[in-house]
């Protein structure tokens, strides 16, 4: 995510802007730490099949609920212990990172692509099309997002793919609103008028002239949505409507581990901790991005 974000910031702004962006971003110590954690997570996710000590779905009947290695009864073969059917927790967490990051990436891409397009059209064209788009978004926003996602998954059928589509649908109104507001304020600026006078068509004006100047807040919203997507997907998994067992998705793992809550703390604590660390890292990056991309908020 951060790579994509910085890359677009680079193309958006004037030459040398990336250095400026990085200067502001790196002033925020939390954001740099978040970025470091995030990069590590991405590396773990990419390398999971190579570095995970065990197959994440392989059950070992001789090692059920083995505690982590530092606790009494722990085995060095299972650094973070095993779950109720003897699967290695560390391997499952590593593979889980792939799911969570993949979910975040797909959901944000979907929500952003649809949301920015609709927002651009609504803000540029205005008129009845604008009214229609915004009223539909109001309807989506009238429901609590997790509830709507649950209902959508109930319609589409449980599963990771449908959960991602559902979450993208409930997240995209934020992109629509944000883009529309920026487009409306940019549209009346002189540089847009100048481009129109110079003969630019509406599509060119929308995508080449106006859009790049609206991307700052959209990028910040994208990081927020990224962490929301991971949380919502985990919640759906936890409720049994997201990824289905034995998929090593963190929320699904938590749901499976719930009954062992008082007997084996590690099967419940560790997947949740993984979710928290990932979401926290992304939110830290988001805070840093907001500071760096929004001059008004700088140094506040």
């Amino acid at each position, binding site marked *: 995510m951060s790579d994509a974000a910085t890359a677009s910031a680079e193309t958006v702004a004037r030459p040398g802007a990336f250095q400026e962006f990085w200067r502001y971003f790196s002033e925020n110590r939390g954001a740099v730490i978040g970025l470091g954690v995030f990069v590590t997570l991405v590396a773990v996710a990419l390398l999971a099949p190579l570095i995970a000590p065990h197959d994440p779905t392989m059950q070992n009947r001789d090692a059920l609920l083995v505690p982590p290695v530092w606790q009494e009864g722990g085995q060095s073969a299972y650094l973070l212990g095993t779950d109720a059917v003897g699967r290695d927790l560390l391997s499952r967490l590593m593979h889980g990172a792939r799911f969570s990051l993949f979910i975040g990436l797909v959901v944000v891409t979907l929500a952003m692509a649809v949301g920015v397009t609709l927002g651009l059209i609504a803000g540029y064209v205005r008129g009845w099309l604008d009214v229609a788009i915004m009223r539909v978004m109001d*309807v989506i926003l009238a429901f*609590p997002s997790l509830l709507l996602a*649950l209902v959508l998954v*109930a*319609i589409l059928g449980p599963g990771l793919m449908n959960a991602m589509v559902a979450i993208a649908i409930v997240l995209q109104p934020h992109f629509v609103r944000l883009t529309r507001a920026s487009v409306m304020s940019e549209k009346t600026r002189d540089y847009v008028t100048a481009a129109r006078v110079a003969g630019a068509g509406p599509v060119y004006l929308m995508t080449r002239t106006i859009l790049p100047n609206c991307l700052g807040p959209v990028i910040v919203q994208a990081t927020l949505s990224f962490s929301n997507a991971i949380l919502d997907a985990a919640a759906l998994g936890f*409720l*049994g409507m997201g990824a289905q067992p034995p998929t090593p998705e963190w929320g699904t793992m938590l749901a499976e581990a719930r009954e062992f809550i008082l007997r084996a703390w590690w099967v*419940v604590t560790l997947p949740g901790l993984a979710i928290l660390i990932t979401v926290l890292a992304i939110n830290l990056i988001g805070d840093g991005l907001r500071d760096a991309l929004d001059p008004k908020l700088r140094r506040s």
Partner: protein
Amino acid sequence: MLHFILRRIALIVPTLFGITVLAFGFIRVLPGDPVLLLAGERGLSPERYEALLTQFGYDQPLWRQYLDFLGGLAQGDLGISIITKKPVLTEFMALFPATLELSFCAMVFAVAVGLPAGVIAATRRGKFLDQAMMGTALIGYSMPIFWWGLLLIVVFSGMLGWTPVSGRMSLMYYFPTPTGFMLIDSLLSGEKGAFASAVRHLILPAIVLGTIPLAVIARQTRSAMLEVLGEDYVRTARAKGLSPMRVVGLHALRNALIPVITVIGLTTGTLLAGAILTETIFSWPGVGKWMVDSIFRRDYPAVQGGLILIALVVMVVNLLVDVAYGFINPRIRTQ
């Protein structure tokens, strides 16, 4: 002011209309025949099927069905639950006080902790306390609350045995519940220990549900305070020699509160809509858990009616927030 309120209400109408379309469409886009879905697992004889088709009006054209559906809504008829055979509205109203009580306590917790935390962080800007508080707030904001709830259960119910794991009231007590709010009903009942039991049942769910609002309120308060503390009138108040307590508490906080109140209002709307995860973890018999259960039991009329009612609650709360906001901040009214 009246004009402002009327305009806000007018803005709601199209959304409300959209919500009914969505809820109406919900049962019809589900894969499978609606009558068979309503019949459940047991199946139907062809005659009964025909009878039900006519009874529910599924033999009518779609627009006709929608108009009938709207007509029913106008009379408070939201359908009948397949499982309990009771009207959906009755079910909802029976469960709503539980959700209301939980959301209210969660919000009290969030404001009581979040607001002072935000103010203190702003006055100690950049210091260790500020960083520690805002770091904690960001952790709270990033919290998967279903996990947070489980952790609190492990510690406070499992290890320490201080709080019960689920429900609203110990089975030891039995008393009438005229208001539906356990805290009030337990006091009214006069049963010894019932109120304490209600509090013990409520405390963990309220903390879990209040965690993210708390973080949002603390962050919002801090940034609003920082903005206000830089204003001229605050400098004037300081220059007058007013005590820092008075400057921060009276001059700054009052002006910083407007955005904070907005955040509180908007969060309340979502909390009231049924805290799905919190209610599920603590088996709290509220609207959120009822919706999840209904989805799992394929009780589609309940889901359909619940969707409409929940959206209605959210919109009414948001409307009230808007109106309250208009009272506090006159500039909004003219926009």
